[in-house]
């Protein structure tokens, strides 16, 4: 996965993501594609969660999956999550859960609870940073005011790091794939470098949902695992999603 939150030079915030999933779960040699990724693509739907006929939040989901991986609370915040691998992983959380230690939250139900119940970027950030989880994760959060964009790197128990947009430092966007931002990504799976190269080439003046879609369409940010691309603009309350393909030659991940 690749998630990006960016602020243009007028203070507009844009949030985009590629949802990549299905690694090592069966390769279709004939069609040069991942079996599960191809099965997930028809399940991609946009959901408008309403209460009293008012939109509470919107999300892009796989049908049948009630947790949240990509969502917007219109005019308040935008949220995506990327998978994080750690030895202290989900299997420990699941084991604890089965043994009756149930003080941790399932990741995608925390994101759903935050989208449904948090009323500000700061509140969302606090909950995502402090709630005990069953598995590690990256939460990428965009707000509705200048400078409100961050990557929260989570272990099961702690918030390990928070990287925020900081215009004074020239950091007008934050980009997360599936590696801790203070570490080099696995050289075989470096989607961060091309993603940042294209963001820098785009420049802050020209960033928009359109140009963010260009970045998310560039290989290997776009790869054989990419099921959908979602673009969100909090000030407009806008969420757009597109089912993707990656024509050969294309990286398997």
């Amino acid at each position, binding site marked *: 996965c690749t998630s990006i939150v960016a602020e243009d030079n007028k203070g507009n915030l844009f949030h985009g993501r590629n949802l990549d999933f299905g690694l090592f*779960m*069966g390769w279709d040699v004939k069609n040069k594609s991942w*079996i*599960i990724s191809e*099965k*997930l693509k*028809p*399940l*991609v*739907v*946009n*959901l*408008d969660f*309403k*209460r*009293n006929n008012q939109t509470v939040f919107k999300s*892009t989901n796989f*049908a*049948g*999956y*009630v*947790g949240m991986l990509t969502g917007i609370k219109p005019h308040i915040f935008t949220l995506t999550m990327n*998978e994080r*691998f*750690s030895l202290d*992983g*989900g*299997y420990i959380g*699941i084991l604890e*859960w*089965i043994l009756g230690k149930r003080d941790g939250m*399932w990741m*995608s*139900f925390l994101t759903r609870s935050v989208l*449904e119940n948090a009323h500000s970027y700061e509140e969302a950030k606090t909950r995502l940073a402090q709630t005990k989880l*069953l*598995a*590690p994760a990256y939460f990428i959060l965009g707000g509705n005011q200048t400078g409100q964009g961050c990557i929260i790197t989570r272990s099961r128990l702690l918030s390990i790091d928070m990287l925020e947009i900081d215009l004074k430092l020239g950091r007008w966007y934050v980009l997360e794939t599936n590696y801790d931002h203070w570490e080099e990504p696995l050289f075989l799976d*470096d989607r961060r470098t091309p993603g940042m*190269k*294209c963001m820098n080439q785009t420049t802050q003046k020209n960033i928009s*949902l*359109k*140009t963010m*879609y*260009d970045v998310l*369409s*560039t*290989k*290997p940010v776009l790869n054989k695992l990419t099921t*959908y*691309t979602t673009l969100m603009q909090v000030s407009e309350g806008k969420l757009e*999603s*597109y*089912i*993707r*393909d*990656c024509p050969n*030659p294309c*990286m398997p991940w």
Partner: protein
Amino acid sequence: QFIPPYTEDCRTEMYPPNGPTFRGAVSWYTVDLDLPPSKRWTALITDKKTDLVNMIQAIKDLAYAFVPSGRLIELVDITLVSVIFPLTFSLNLYYIFLIPFCNLGEVVLFNIFYEVFTV
């Protein structure tokens, strides 16, 4: 670049989405939170049940490839539900399951796949 890692120059003018990297738009559904869980997901799941069954079957085929005896599937279908879910969300899932086409344990596995996949 035609050798791994198949990078390319930064793309431009890709929006509005079109061409070989764009398979299709995504349909919208409303989930009415004023409705009981049993009614919220009906329209969506009715439209997507065939695709959902296909996806779950692909996971089962994978499980059979690893454990041909089918024990892994049994573990999911029989024990997973009883050990995993907090009541609130299982209510949601339970109602999805009531649309009679697939096993609750498989729907539960689908919904905790993030934690399972980190294994």
